[in-house]
């Protein structure tokens, strides 16, 4: 073992490097959060959208779908579903309502959630809002998501 590879120095690099890069991460986070209003579509973040997000969460939509590429990969991307469905919240609502209760034989199918008309509107508005987020390079690459 080389004498001049000391544990003390290795330890200092671990703590020093860790703290240093953590501080850099915090700094970048501050910058990011301050800059977000330009891209995060928060001007359209209404009560209705917030309620839609809650519905999105308590029905665990992320367990099959992806939203901006994150989630499960079992069902289509929904970050751009508003665009894909011809910028129509009615089309989104219609799709959610149309799901058969017992599924489609042999195929994947979204469950029937029995949403009320208000809830449907909230979900649709939420998806519209997500579509309005200005994502770098306009991800996903095309409307298929």
């Amino acid at each position: 073992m080389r004498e001049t590879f000391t544990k003390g120095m290795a330890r200092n690099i671990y703590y020093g490097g860790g703290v240093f890069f953590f501080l850099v991460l915090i700094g970048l986070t501050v910058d990011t959060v301050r800059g977000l209003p330009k891209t995060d579509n928060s001007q359209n973040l209404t009560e209705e959208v917030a309620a839609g997000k809650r519905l999105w969460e308590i029905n665990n939509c992320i367990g099959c779908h992806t939203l901006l590429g994150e989630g499960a990969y079992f069902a289509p991307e929904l970050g751009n579903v508003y665009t894909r469905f011809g910028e129509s919240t009615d089309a989104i609502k219609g799709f959610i309502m149309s799901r058969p209760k017992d599924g489609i034989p042999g195929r994947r199918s979204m469950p029937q959630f029995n949403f009320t008309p208000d809830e449907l509107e909230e979900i649709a508005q939420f998806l519209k809002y997500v579509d309005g987020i200005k994502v770098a390079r306009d991800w996903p690459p095309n409307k298929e998501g």
Partner: protein
Amino acid sequence: MNTAIIEQEPKLLPGDLAIWFFIFMELLVFGIAFISYAVVRVQNEDMFNQFQLTLNTELGAINTIVLITSSYFVVRAVHTIKNHGDYIGCSHWLYAAIAGGGVFLVLKSFEYYDKFSAGISLSTNTFYMFYLSLTMFHFLHVILGMIILLAIAIKAQRGGYSASNHIGVESGASYWHMVDLVWIILFPLVYVMR
């Protein structure tokens, strides 16, 4: 880690091997960043040339001299402890080097103040993104380097190093030279080359 090579060649690298892992990692990061910069520059040459003109080359040049001088002080510090075992002298050279780093930070802060008050940020455009992230990342390394040198200087002043035991000084010096080296590449790349 019983690298037999190093065992037989204690003079392969000055300082602690551990710091060289760190330096290697840092250089890798800066290296990839510089290559990315060069590639993007080629793709957006006009835009880069245009905004490059807004940078303060004089301050950058002065800062280059400041850092090289500071590096020289560090070399003196290593020389002093290694050949004369003079830990007080060593610590004085280190304080001089830290002062050099301080001058660099002050000058750089003027430059940043200028840019920030003009409303420039990381998201302004690709050139400023690179300019700011590269120089600020380097800026933080200068601060880190100064902290390292300070710790070593204080230890040296208390007689923590001697002619036979000066690895800590060499390690800090190696790190400081890396910070200097990165600037010497960064300055022409971002400020001058067109």
